[in-house]
């Protein structure tokens, strides 16, 4: 079933959780809603489910206004991050809950039992139907929650941070398993995540959200290769930012020309966003931007080098071959072979850590003399 969100807005206490969001999810598509916390992704998911009522805008299921139906009749399978299993029911009764709740054409108890067994087989939990949720591991609980949602044969499957509470190993396994499950069952599926790796690996299409708006909605390849906004660029993957100046259709850093397409950006200040692979070290004596190495870290087969370059000592991170010996305070030359230039006035993604420390109250630290000001 196709899901279409048309111009939906939602405010909480004066804050816009969703600001005029429109999105179409095709039948059978697996879509990730990706964004930092507070970006409105969960609100969007809950609005589609009918758990939130939008202030303005309409959610369509197959061109029918979904708000015409009660939430009970919408046929959405919703899976919560913390499973929300019925603790007082055995696994079997948890999964059968939706079937038994049907008013019209409720299946016979024997059919329900058979269906539950099939679903348990599907989520690979056969033999655990008599357990209580408290007797299961986190990954098993999440699979029970999924089986329970699938039992009602939902027209849309909505997953809110489905793997958020699980450890990294289980998360990886479940991710692969969910992808396979989707290929077998073909439900229209939306899932919310703040984990870019999860979104890029799992989804057909990734919707990047920020501040209640959709920044970009595209395939994982497009999201990574051609990020529409600096936010998408900096939220996905590693990135460095340096300010450049645009003039005569070229970007320059301290009057050195950087050989990049700047599109139709107007003359003036702009930002150059770089991924580690967009910068390479000049080893053949050719022209390049001089910089000073401030740190090196070994990451897998590569060496992640941070240099300071330019008059204002902007930091750039890039990957160099691990065979090259690079020391701190060494002078190097780098060449920019990729990256994207965005005009001034667009904001990138500030990590939560930075955002938190900027707003935190350090009164005690100031009083103790730890912090000046």
């Amino acid at each position, binding site marked *: 079933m196709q899901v279409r969100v048309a111009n939906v807005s939602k405010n909480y206490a004066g804050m816009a959780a969703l600001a005029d969001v429109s999105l179409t999810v095709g039948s059978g598509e697996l879509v990730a809603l990706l964004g930092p916390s507070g970006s409105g992704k969960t609100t969007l998911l809950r609005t589609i489910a009918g758990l939130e009522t939008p202030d303005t805008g309409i959610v369509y299921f197959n061109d029918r206004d979904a708000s015409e139906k009660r939430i009970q009749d919408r046929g959405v399978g919703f899976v919560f991050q913390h499973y929300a299993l019925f603790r007082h029911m055995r696994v079997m009764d948890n999964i059968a809950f939706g079937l038994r709740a049907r008013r019209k054409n409720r299946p016979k108890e024997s059919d329900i039992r058979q269906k539950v067994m099939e679903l348990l087989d599907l989520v690979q939990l056969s033999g655990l139907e008599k357990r209580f949720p408290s007797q299961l591991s986190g990954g098993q609980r999440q699979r029970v*929650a999924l089986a329970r*949602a699938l039992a009602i044969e939902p027209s849309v499957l909505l997953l809110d941070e489905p793997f958020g509470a699980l450890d990294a190993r289980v998360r990886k396994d479940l991710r692969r398993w969910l992808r396979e499950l989707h290929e077998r069952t073909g439900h229209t599926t939306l899932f919310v995540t703040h984990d870019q790796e999860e979104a890029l690996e799992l989804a057909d299409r990734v919707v990047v959200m920020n501040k209640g708006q959709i920044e970009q909605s595209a395939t994982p390849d497009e999201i990574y290769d051609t990020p529409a906004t600096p936010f998408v660029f900096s939220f996905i993957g590693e990135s460095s930012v340096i300010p450049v100046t645009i003039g005569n259709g070229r970007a320059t850093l301290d009057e050195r020309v950087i050989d990049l397409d700047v599109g139709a950006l107007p003359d003036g200040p702009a930002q150059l966003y770089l991924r580690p692979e967009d910068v390479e070290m000049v080893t053949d004596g050719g022209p390049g931007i001089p910089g000073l190495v401030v740190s090196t870290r070994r990451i897998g087969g590569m060496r992640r080098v941070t240099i300071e370059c330019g008059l204002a000592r902007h930091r750039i991170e890039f990957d160099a071959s691990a065979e090259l010996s690079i020391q701190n305070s060494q002078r190097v030359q780098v060449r920019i072979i990729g990256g994207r230039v965005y005009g001034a006035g667009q904001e990138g993604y500030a990590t939560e850590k930075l955002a938190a420390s900027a707003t935190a109250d350090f009164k005690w630290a100031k009083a103790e003399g730890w912090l000046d000001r």
Partner: protein
Amino acid sequence: MSAPAITAQPCGKPPRAKWRRRSVLPGFGLSLGYTLVYLSLIVLLPLAGLAISSASLGWNEFWAIAFDPRVSAALQLSFGAAMLAAIVNTVFGVLIAWVLVRYRFPGRRWLDAAVDLPFALPTAVAGIALATLYAPNGVFGAFLENVLGVKVGFSALGVVFALMFVGLPFVVRTVQPVLEEIDRETEEVSATLGAGRFRTVTRVILPAMFPAILTGFALSFARGVGEYGSVIFIANNLPFESEIAPLLIVIKLDEHNYAGATAIATIMLVIAFVMLFVINLLQAWSRKWFGHD
């Protein structure tokens, strides 16, 4: 993954008893010892005294008192009214807890505080207040008697009303925290799975609250059985009609019939203990049945 069990015993110490597991919470011996001594001094010792002094009666006299029609009428009223009041309190206490937890409205905190008043008020004061209201010439009493033909004040019904008053906070205060703990998401999930509101409440919320409701019921019931102060003011304390067992004990004491008083007390104690024990069993069973552990 299981780490190899540490089997080495410290030299010179006898092996630990099997039920005493090695624990990160030390002080088991000390705290259990303290618990037993304390319980013995505060609870068991007086009760033992009660049993001993009623034993001085001898079986025949004891049974004569136990099956004395006036005594059994009083016992019936005490336990019957306490049971009835506890049932009513359970229904409305759960409702009040629900309203206090689930809805936000002006004056909620005041209402929340008001629930505790029966705890704080001397029960005699409560009894006098209730008696004034429900007496045949009181505000409600006159209305109930003239319009509905129900006599509340100075009757057995008055006993139930008094016990409802003193027992209510027990239900509210035991159910409230459990209700607060119930995850909103389980209700939302229930709705997305197609369950209507009634089904969600009866199949999802109430079962999760059941052990707490049972505890509240037991506490309210126990309080009702032991209540004295408020009841004697609102009931007219007629033998065979509105005389509760604790009052009968006081009457016996006034007559210097100490053996008779302790006999009634012992009977009350045994009945109350059995009933509370059954409720406890029921609760343990329900916890298991509903998978709380």
